[in-house]
């Protein structure tokens, strides 16, 4: 076997690929050959490290040096300094935001310090296209344990003891779900993985599939054994080509190794897995719509009951879990249900991956124990708000979730506390907003999303979301009337209670929660015809403050409609009838002479 003295891990997650990691890998290959150490140093393309903000990420072992924002031009220096001479390239290390101290090692970076990686345990550490690297980190050992020493009932009991709840949104007990499916009679059952991740801002499932596909396959096989299924589907949205590619490689390797297919590990248990590519409809993340889509029908939800556990795919008992849920499964059988349940809160066990996006310093993926506060996630891991602006709200749970204001940031995060606040865990997307975000506009954004994604089957969702959106648009255009708030609340409640599926039932959440915490902003729009955050353009007017204006003419040159005029070195004037409120002039002005309001 070839022995390498150093491994260079290049992040091949979608985030880093888009910031150029493929070119870096190529440059590295070339440079190693040029310096004649390509036989001593191995390049490993890994999945996502989570710290996408700092990508492309390159980690050099055995030292574990963490290089961030690496460019192709940096490669010769990394090779000749670090890999040949053993001198760390200081300037490429991560710099702590406050102290500006350079942090050489992965584990010392604040972004990672508070994290506890279970579902993401292998992401960024292994080559996802080499099953041996997964096996080296105890991969498929949990399956071996289950197949050789446990009955399906014991597997289900352990799952109930572990207290794992569905990570896709609903938070239903995974053990109970398995139990229902296992108790359904019938020789043919299906196991299904829901990888139709569609919440704006959420990308943890994609990262798990790209970075550690075998953990999902192993979780599915354990679940299949527990419920008595011999066939399964992974429903992956087609917008995730890299995840699909890596899953295909993983399935082929597992089949070749005898870990998937007939008579797995000589146990007599057989299971085949297929990939079904979704076509990008958000509603197909709803389990009954998802199964309809696999069957080749139009992706629309069906009333429950019957639940999938009784009558699912092709009318056979089926069990659907989400990607992150399955990735947690092997850990439970590897280290024991009690150990798993020792992390988290009383009713929410284990860890949860959050996708940090929005106005944060450190965006990316963070896996934290349940019960941590939102403040810790946003300010300690996320590094706080960009450009030292003021925090306003965090949108959690995507289009089904809600906005949580400053005063609730110290609430310990779990399924039930978030629901009590009017949001929900959802898939774990966290969109952080600062003082420049208008909450009416945010509510409109999410409703616009659900309204477009409504399948149209039931009236409350199809018509109700449309009407609510019209009202929000009216308010943002400055035409709101006092009754609009009550109508919104009323409509919201009706839709919540009467829509057919979870998409419709949760669609009003973003509006109801913003009405609950930011009612004053709605009222300002309606009564004063003002947008406090200065976002809704219909209610804004741009003005030039004459005493600040130096007459440099920069604004006049950038204005696309010629609304600004004036003599050189004299205060300019702005014609509001021509102004389209694009904001270009404000960006250009160096003297703070243009204001909006």
């Amino acid at each position, binding site marked *: *076997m*070839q*022995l*390498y*003295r*150093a*491994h260079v*891990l290049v992040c091949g997650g979608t985030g880093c690929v888009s910031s150029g990691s493929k070119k870096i890998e190529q440059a590295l290959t070339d440079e190693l050959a040029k310096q004649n150490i390509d036989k*001593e140093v191995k390049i490993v393309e890994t999945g996502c490290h989570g710290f996408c903000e700092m990508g492309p990420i390159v980690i050099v*072992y*055995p*030292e*574990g040096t963490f290089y961030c924002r690496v460019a192709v031009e940096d490669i010769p220096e990394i090779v000749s300094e670090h890999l*040949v*001479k*053993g*001198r760390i390239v200081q300037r490429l290390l991560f710099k702590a935001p406050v102290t500006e101290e350079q942090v050489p090692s992965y584990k010392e970076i604040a972004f990672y310090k508070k994290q506890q990686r279970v579902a993401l345990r292998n992401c960024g*550490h*292994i080559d996802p296209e*080499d099953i*041996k*690297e997964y*096996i*080296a*980190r*105890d991969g*498929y*050992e949990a399956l*071996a*344990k289950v*197949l*050789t020493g446990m009955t399906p009932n014991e597997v289900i009991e352990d799952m109930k003891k572990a207290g794992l709840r569905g990570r896709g949104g609903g938070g239903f007990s995974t053990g109970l779900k398995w139990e229902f499916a296992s108790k359904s009679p019938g020789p043919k059952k299906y196991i299904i993985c829901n990888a139709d991740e569609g919440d704006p801002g959420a990308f943890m499932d994609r990262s798990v599939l790209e970075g550690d596909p075998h953990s999902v396959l192993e979780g599915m096989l354990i679940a299949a054994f527990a419920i008595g299924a011999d066939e399964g589907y992974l429903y992956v949205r087609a917008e995730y080509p890299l995840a699909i590619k890596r899953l295909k490689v993983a399935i082929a390797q597992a089949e*070749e*190794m*005898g*870990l998937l297919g007939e008579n797995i*590990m*000589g146990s007599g248990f057989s299971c085949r897995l297929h990939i079904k590519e979704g076509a990008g409809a958000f509603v197909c993340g709803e389990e009954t719509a998802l199964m309809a889509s696999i069957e080749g029908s139009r992706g629309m939800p069906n009333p429950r009951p019957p639940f999938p556990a009784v009558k699912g795919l092709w009318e056979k008992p089926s069990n659907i879990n989400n990607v992150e849920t399955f990735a947690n499964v092997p850990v439970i059988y590897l280290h024991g249900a009690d150990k798993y349940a020792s992390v988290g809160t009383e009713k929410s066990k284990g860890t949860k991956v959050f996708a940090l996006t929005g106005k944060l310093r450190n965006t990316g993926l963070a896996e934290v124990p349940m019960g941590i506060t939102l403040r810790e996630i946003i300010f300690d891991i996320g590094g706080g708000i960009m450009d030292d602006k003021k925090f306003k709200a965090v949108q959690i749970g995507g289009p089904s979730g809600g906005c949580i204001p400053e005063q609730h940031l110290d609430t310990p995060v779990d399924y039930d506390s978030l629901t009590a606040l009017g949001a929900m865990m959802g898939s774990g997307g966290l969109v952080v907003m600062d003082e420049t975000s208008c909450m009416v506009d945010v509510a409109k954004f999410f409703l616009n999303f659900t309204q477009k994604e409504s399948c149209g089957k039931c009236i409350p969702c199809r018509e109700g979301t449309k009407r609510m959106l019209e009202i929000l648009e009216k308010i943002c255009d400055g035409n709101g009337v006092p009754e609009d708030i009550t109508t919104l609340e009323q409509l919201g409640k009706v839709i919540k209670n009467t829509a057919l599926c979870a998409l419709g039932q949760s669609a009003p959440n973003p509006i109801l929660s913003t009405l609950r915490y930011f009612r004053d902003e709605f009222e300002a729009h309606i009564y004063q015809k003002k947008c406090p955050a200065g976002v809704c353009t219909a209610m804004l007017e741009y003005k030039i403050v004459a005493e600040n204006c130096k007459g440099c003419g920069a604004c006049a040159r950038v204005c696309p409609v010629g609304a600004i005029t004036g003599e050189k070195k004299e205060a300019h004037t702005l014609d509001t009838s021509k102004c389209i409120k694009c904001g270009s002039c404000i960006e250009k002005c160096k003297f703070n002479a243009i204001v909006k309001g």
Partner: protein
Amino acid sequence: MIKSAEDLRRLREEAKALTNIRAGQGVEIIVGMGTCGIAAGAREVMSAVLDELAKRDMTDVRVTQTGCIGMCEKEVLIDVVRPGETRITYGRVKPQDISRIINSHVINGQIVEDLVVAKLD
């Protein structure tokens, strides 16, 4: 082809060799790669270390480099650090000394006294 749980466990032991280097444990061999070290033949010594480890299938030993530590006169310098033991620096190391250092010190814990130039706690 994995036909039993035992097969899986056997394969895992083999596979661990692939990723051991990322675990950060085991013996470390540090080769002085300053300009002085390279001029004195550190590259050849490094190759000899890697060849010897490969020959013996020792995938749990980490090989790293370091810059000039001032004793340029004594280059090529290599350090052997066994977990929990004193860091031993060998000087004027030639490729042909490597087999002896690995066999006696890295594997068996017997310091090769005639090549030692420093012992660091």
